[in-house]
């Protein structure tokens, strides 16, 4: 643990559970196979729902032809005209139809809905509807986007656009010793949560509906479904069932299928499940935004950064969905954990005829950080400096200013992260050994790469202040605490870490704290489970609720809270927790609810994109070693080391699990994973045979450690964690390949063909 006594913002030292790897509350039932996910708990009499989908990439829908030989009368059919409310799925904008009825914007776009008593009948019915579409010209694929961004940028249609500016970039570039330019490309990435998307909608009396299933954000689904049904939000109840992975993939997309299921349930007056098989799940759900980043950086000969001039273009797919928010986070993180005296970042989310891109762990930052961290190694090579020295010279430190002109006032841990990872990996010695080996020729070349990264915790800018998340704790007369929050468990350990925080704040054992999966009829809106905000923001809310609860119990029974959940009466008698709870509840329950208060000294201007983008950042450094086969150009990660500053670590085992899992997703992103589209919009990688993710045999030993630089407004000093580990390993691997071969792709994934292209380009340039 870090030395918390030196940190004045903390009210209490870390106590019994926080900082301890207490067992996950859900682990035993999971290893026994007893946890019941959506398809393990379908209600009696459920029908199966699905969508008639566009076979065209872009076009005008002329008609839906229903095969007259198929009997549709015993099924439920929903057409756009049957949507009682707004025919749109509400996210950052209202532009995405629930069911497209005029222009179709991507292959697989839903056009009509059908529900049937069984899967076979549903499949037959869907096949008996033929959309007739007049094709229109389409734009598909990040290479087509990159070509336009280079040659004809005005031909790209913006879904959203923003600029970040600081200082005078033109003047700074003119004064720089060296200008280094580069273009970096990243592919769409599929989440591959192991449980496919799925929800059940069940009609409620009075026109409402209950949505249950595999999802991240109950309070995103509620207004989206209510708008489609034309009912007040309260008429829609959303509950999470155990969820087999999400990674952002179940942040936005469940609103789509929940709306579909709700419409079908209303049509057939019975529960309807909408789910996918794996191929459909890969073909129609969101992906990580593909990106192209064009950088022009001015530096001094000693490696000091003077100007960052960047164009950051992300492929949003067919509709706005969450692209403005992804764009924002990507653009803010693009400068990396470095101080740039002048910055001009022009960020655009552009429309293509691909399925809408969406939330995926990292949320724009992995794309931006791949670009900047690959570029820093190119800058170092141009200057003839060690990439480590260039990074060291420009690190953000306490009091430094970020690209959004935020002055960092606390919890800046990038320097200790770097020092730790260099030590753990024996960086200098390892790099030298690899360089000797690579110079010696042979069948393989080894290389060592480094990358530094950061991630802001919570919503960007004024987001948390505007949404005012709330959480509650209910004390039962038997002394049990029920945490009431809308935050979901999908593997990260939310239920365990939030319970640890509550138990510690009350001085109780874990056995007295319950955190049921959320149901909007029971829990306040503590916000979505996204943006690395659950521990840092909601954990803090729960901590404050718990402290207030202890105080309220004391007031009600006229006693003073003491250690380990006990109370002392004025006469000196000590009451244990159970006796105090029983007396304080007086046969009922005692509920404490709190509203989040954003630190008042933080300011953000959405117009100029300046100010305190995040209350606190988490930081990380990663070193990776690779072996490249000189004959096949296959890249293999041999070992990797990462040190992260996430503030106080609430549960070390689960935190390590988050880091290891994120690193392996980043390893797949760097070496294996991509979705490529044919010119007519067909994804070539649409099943797990072709969309390849790492197995245990692809993953080397990962060495993870933490430095703890606490944050004053986090629970016991904790900051955000979930997304950070996705941000660094991909550029570290790229830089390791560069170290091994003297050249490396400026794009992901680094498949042998991409490595060959990079080597060929370098050889041509030298010639």
């Amino acid at each position, binding site marked *: 643990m870090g030395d918390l006594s030196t940190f004045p913002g903390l009210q209490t030292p870390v106590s019994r559970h926080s900082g301890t790897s207490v067992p996950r509350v859900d682990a035993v039932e999971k290893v026994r*196979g007893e946890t019941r996910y959506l398809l393990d708990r379908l209600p009696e009499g459920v029908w199966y729902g699905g969508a008639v989908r566009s076979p065209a990439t872009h076009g005008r829908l002329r008609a839906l032809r229903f095969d007259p030989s198929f009997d549709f009368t015993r099924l439920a059919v929903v057409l756009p005209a049957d949507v009682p409310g707004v025919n749109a799925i509400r996210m950052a904008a209202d532009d995405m139809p629930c069911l497209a009825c005029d222009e179709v914007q991507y292959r697989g776009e839903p056009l009509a809905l059908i529900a049937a008593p069984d899967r076979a009948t549903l499949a037959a019915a869907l096949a008996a509807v033929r959309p007739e579409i007049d094709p229109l010209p389409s734009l598909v694929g990040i290479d087509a986007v990159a070509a336009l961004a280079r040659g004809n940028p005005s031909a790209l249609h913006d879904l959203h656009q923003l600029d970040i500016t600081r200082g005078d970039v033109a003047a700074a570039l003119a004064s720089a010793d060296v200008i280094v330019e580069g273009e970096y490309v990243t592919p769409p990435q599929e989440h591959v949560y192991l*449980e496919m998307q799925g929800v059940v909608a069940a009609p409620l009396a009075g026109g409402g509906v209950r949505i249950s299933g595999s999802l991240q954000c109950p309070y995103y689904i509620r207004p989206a479904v209510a708008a489609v049904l034309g009912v007040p939000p309260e008429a829609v109840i959303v509950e999470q069932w155990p969820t087999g992975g999400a990674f952002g993939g179940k942040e936005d997309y469940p609103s789509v299928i929940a709306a579909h299921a709700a419409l079908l349930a209303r049509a057939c007056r019975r529960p309807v499940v909408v789910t996918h098989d794996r191929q459909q799940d890969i073909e129609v759900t969101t992906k990580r935004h593909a990106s192209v980043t064009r950088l022009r950086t001015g530096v001094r000969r000693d490696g000091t950064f003077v100007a960052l001039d960047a164009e950051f273009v992300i492929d949003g797919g067919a509709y706005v969905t969450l692209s403005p928010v992804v764009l924002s986070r990507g653009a803010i993180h693009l400068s990396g954990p470095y101080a740039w005296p002048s910055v001009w970042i022009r960020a655009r989310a552009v429309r293509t005829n691909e399925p809408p891109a969406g939330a995926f762990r990292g949320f724009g930052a992995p794309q931006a950080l791949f670009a900047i961290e690959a570029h820093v190694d190119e800058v170092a090579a141009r200057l003839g400096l060690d990439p480590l020295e260039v990074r060291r010279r420009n690190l953000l430190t306490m009091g430094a200013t970020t690209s959004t002109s935020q002055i960092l006032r606390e919890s800046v841990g990038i320097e200790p992260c770097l020092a730790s990872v260099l030590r753990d990996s024996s960086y200098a010695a390892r790099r030298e050994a690899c360089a000797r080996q690579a110079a010696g020729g042979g069948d393989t070349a080894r290389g060592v790469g480094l990358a530094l990264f950061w991630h802001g915790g919570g919503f960007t800018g004024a987001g948390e202040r505007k949404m005012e998340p709330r959480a509650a704790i209910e004390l039962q007369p038997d002394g049990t605490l029920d945490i009431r929050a809308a935050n979901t468990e999908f*593997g990260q350990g939310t239920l365990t870490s939030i319970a640890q925080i509550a138990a510690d704040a009350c001085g109780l054992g874990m056995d007295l704290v319950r955190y049921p999966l959320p149901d909007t009829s029971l829990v306040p809106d503590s916000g979505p489970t996204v943006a690395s905000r659950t521990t840092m923001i909601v954990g803090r809310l729960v901590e404050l609720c718990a402290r207030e609860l202890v105080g309220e119990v004391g007031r009600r029974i006229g006693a003073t809270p003491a250690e380990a959940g006990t109370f002392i009466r004025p006469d000196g008698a000590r009451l244990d927790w159970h006796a105090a709870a029983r007396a304080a509840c007086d046969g009922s329950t005692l509920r404490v609810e709190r509203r989040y208060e954003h630190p008042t000294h933080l300011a953000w201007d959405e117009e100029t994109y300046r100010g305190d983008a995040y209350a606190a950042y988490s930081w990380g450094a990663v070193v990776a070693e690779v072996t490249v086969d000189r004959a096949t150009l296959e890249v293999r990660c041999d070992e990797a080391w990462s040190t992260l500053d996430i503030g106080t670590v609430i549960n070390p085992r689960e935190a390590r699990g988050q*880091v290891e899992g994120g690193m392996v997703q980043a390893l797949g992103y760097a070496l294996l994973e991509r979705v490529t589209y044919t010119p007519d919009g067909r994804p070539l990688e649409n099943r797990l045979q072709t969309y390849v*993710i790492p*197995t245990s045999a692809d993953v080397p030993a990962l060495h993870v450690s933490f430095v703890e630089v606490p944050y004053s407004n986090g629970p016991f000093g904790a900051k955000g964690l979930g997304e950070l580990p996705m941000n660094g390993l991909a550029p570290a691997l790229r830089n390791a390949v560069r170290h091994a071969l003297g050249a490396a792709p400026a794009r992901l994934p680094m498949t042998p063909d991409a490595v060959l292209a990079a080597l060929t380009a370098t050889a041509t340039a030298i010639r």
Partner: protein
Amino acid sequence: MEGGAITRQWTINGTPRRVTFEPAARLLDVVRDVLGLTGTKEGCGEGECGACSVVVNGVLKLSCLQLAAAVPDDALLVTVEGVGATPIGRQLQRAMVERGGVQCGFCTPGFVVAAWWYVESRPPVSAREALAGNLCRCTGYQGLVAAVTQVAEEVAASDGERS
């Protein structure tokens, strides 16, 4: 329906059962829908992810690719629910909990079954290689490999003591 239903007599997790299913049924669907053993999961339906792993007559099988009708009478089937009733199964489950081998839990039953088969039948490969037929997107495999390696070593050591 051509052919009509098929009936087999199997021993499932130690209990003899008569099972009736459609001729084209996958073993996965029979395990889940007919036998009601929902611990076995479908993650891809094409033999890539291993979430549907079961053991049939001592052989690790992907039940999504296995025609149920091709499993003969008197076959011995073990699913995750049965693995947990064995000493090695319990040892593995405990190690997975302790070593951080569990997150979302959806791939977990498949890993439990594959790991149990590995520890019981001892093919000459490391745990890291033995688990490569199962996909996990959450853990990064470190906790899983550590747990299975640990139990394989413990079991080998205790066998050594016994002999």
